[in-house]
């Protein structure tokens, strides 16, 4: 698509150059690796397992559920025949994952979400049992007792009063109950693992999710600065809907429609989308610059570093160009060689988790 580059490089003369992506090597038939990865996202959960040679196998499920009317409890066999996953819990019937999204339209109801803004939802009482079943569905049984599983956790937000203690504790307990040995890994750090191998895992990984953006600055695999902002794709949808006077779902459709390009908005709604994307990216970069200036133990990068973005919110056309443009406007304390989007942006975090698990 014209204007939608997946990588922008800044050479030292300050001129931009669009660099073609390196070709990927095929799997070399390395021995299979034990361990699993789990991307715990607000909108979607993904699990990854490395098979013999080749690319990882990924399973995904929407992170949502729906309680359906009690009269359907007698028709559970029908649900099984339709390949609809359900859980019967305390005399109530819940449908999980993608199927809940489809059924919600049929019943004219809203799906319920176990997570909100990157963390377990405090308002959702049934969140933990439902999340347990969705995770169990994705991970299956451990390959061996106490198989390691690395799951993504967000960093505490700089603009919201949250912390990871409860969320991480519940996820660890849940995974232990399923027979795994859980290990948390920062979401931005997982992106570094998955995408910055050629740079010796030195650079900045940004996971652009629905609930939040997670940032990790790493030096030779070590995370130096990690933080998150509680704004993501959902925040953009909400604000675009508000100022344009349109429903939020309509704003989501506009943002995700084919042909949308942040560098070439075609109408007022797309202009609003561009405005909020730019605002969010500028917000993230300014906070990153400020964290760098305040932190005491920041490594000194001798060479310019690369920024990699991943996640569903980064898939919109022109995202990398806008990111690079905003980067030029911010007084960034580090020299940046370029900005690129991960080739497989949707599975970047789960692949990073899988890499960490394979090293265990």
């Amino acid at each position, binding site marked *: 698509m014209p204007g939608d580059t997946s990588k922008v490089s800044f050479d030292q003369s300050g001129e931009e150059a669009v660099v073609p992506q390196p070709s990927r090597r095929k799997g070399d038939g390395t021995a299979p690796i034990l361990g699993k990865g789990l991307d715990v996202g607000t909108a979607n959960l993904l699990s990854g397992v490395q098979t013999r040679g080749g690319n990882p196998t990924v399973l995904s499920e929407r992170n949502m559920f729906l309680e359906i009317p009690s009269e359907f409890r007698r028709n559970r066999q029908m649900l099984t025949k339709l390949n609809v996953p359900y*859980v019967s819990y305390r005399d109530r019937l819940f449908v999980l994952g993608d199927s809940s999204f489809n059924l919600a339209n049929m019943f004219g109801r809203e799906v319920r979400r176990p997570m909100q803004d990157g963390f377990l939802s405090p308002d959702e009482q049934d969140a933990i049992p439902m999340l347990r079943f969705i995770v169990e569905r994705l991970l299956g049984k451990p390959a061996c007792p106490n198989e390691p599983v690395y799951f993504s956790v967000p960093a505490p937000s700089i603009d919201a009063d949250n912390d990871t*203690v409860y969320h991480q504790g519940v996820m660890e307990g849940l995974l*232990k109950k399923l027979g795994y040995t859980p290990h948390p890994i920062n979401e931005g750090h997982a992106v570094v693992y998955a995408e910055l191998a*050629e740079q010796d895992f030195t650079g900045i990984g940004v996971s652009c999710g629905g609930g939040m953006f997670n940032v990790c600055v790493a030096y030779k695999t070590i995370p130096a600065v990690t933080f998150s902002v509680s704004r993501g794709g959902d925040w953009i949808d909400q604000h675009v809907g508000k100022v344009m006077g349109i429903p939020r779902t309509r704003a989501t459709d506009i943002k995700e429609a084919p042909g949308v390009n942040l560098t070439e908005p075609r109408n007022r709604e797309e202009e609003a989308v561009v*405005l909020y994307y730019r605002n969010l990216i500028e917000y993230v970069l300014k906070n990153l610059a400020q964290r760098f200036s305040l932190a005491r133990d920041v490594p000194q990068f001798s060479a310019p570093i690369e920024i990699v973005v991943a996640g569903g919110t980064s898939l919109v056309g022109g995202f990398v160009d806008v990111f690079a443009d905003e980067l030029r406007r911010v007084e960034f304390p580090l020299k940046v060689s370029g900005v690129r989007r991960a080739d497989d942006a949707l599975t970047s975090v789960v692949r990073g988790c899988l890499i960490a698990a394979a090293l265990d």
Partner: protein
Amino acid sequence: MKREDRRNVASVIEANTERITLKELAAKGKSHVRVISGRKVMQLIQAVVDEAIAQQVGEVTKEDRERIVQDATRRFQHVSRMHAETEALVRQQKDLLGRQQTQIKQLEKTQATLGKQLAQERRLSAEREKTARLHAETLEGAQSHLRETGERERRMTRAIRKLDQRLQNSRLTIDNYDREIDRLAGQVQEDVTLIEELQEHVREREHELQRMHGLMQALNEEVAAARARGTESETVSELRGELGEMRSFLKSLEERERAGDTTAVEALFERLHQKQAATKVEMESSFQARLDETLDHIGKALQAATAKPIDRRVEATDVVISKLFDDETDMESNLQSLDLKVSTAKQSILKSLERLKELRGSDLEEDPPEEVAGT
């Protein structure tokens, strides 16, 4: 008929008739017309006038007739002139009306154009307002963030000031303790001096005792010499008695002094020792407690002032977490019976894994191959 009269009739007829084409007549369904000349009309009028006059006044003279005709003609001309003027005025008004209607149409067109422009301007204005609101919202967000940052900085500054104050108080306390130590050191010095004086006194007494012993010995020798001379006189007996008394007196004196001095010195040492010990313990415990308290305050204040997102990874206890999942007796699901949608990632992890292991110094080939359970 005079030519002038014929012209007048023609103009009147012109003024009171309508010009119409033969085609229009045919369109109205008229196929025949009757034509009359102006001369004939004049004749008819004259004939009508003559008949009217004849009926009204009978036979009239030629002069009367001519006068009446002239008079009628004048009146007719006057009326026809007025009629012509009226017609002219009507035509003028019609022209004016036509021009005004044309002007009205033009104005209506202009009004429509201006209306469209106005609507467009209103739309543009609404869009500009929306953009301005967007910018205002962004600005408000930035200002809010600035306010929060400013507030944090002010809190840090206040915390640092408090720390500084506590540090100064601690320094003062340390100074006070130093002075107390100096004072006690001085007191100890005085006590040492006193002890030395006592020791000097004891030494003097001992010296006196030695001198007394020397005297006694001399007396003893005199008594022995007197005894050796073989005579024991009353004087010698007296001397012996006195010597005995002196000896017992000296002994008692010695014992008393020794006991007294020892007791005094011991008491003094004991008092000093106790005092020093108590003071030392008291000082040490007080100082330690105060120091601990101050250090604790400083530590907490420093933490609060320089707080950064420290990863407080707290592992919830197994007991607490397992309680969340204890209530599984009522659960039933069909998850084991269902197929899952499986996809393959577009990118491999092997390169990243290999590079990580190189960086960490472990050999890829040492990993024993392990089967991974199917999904």
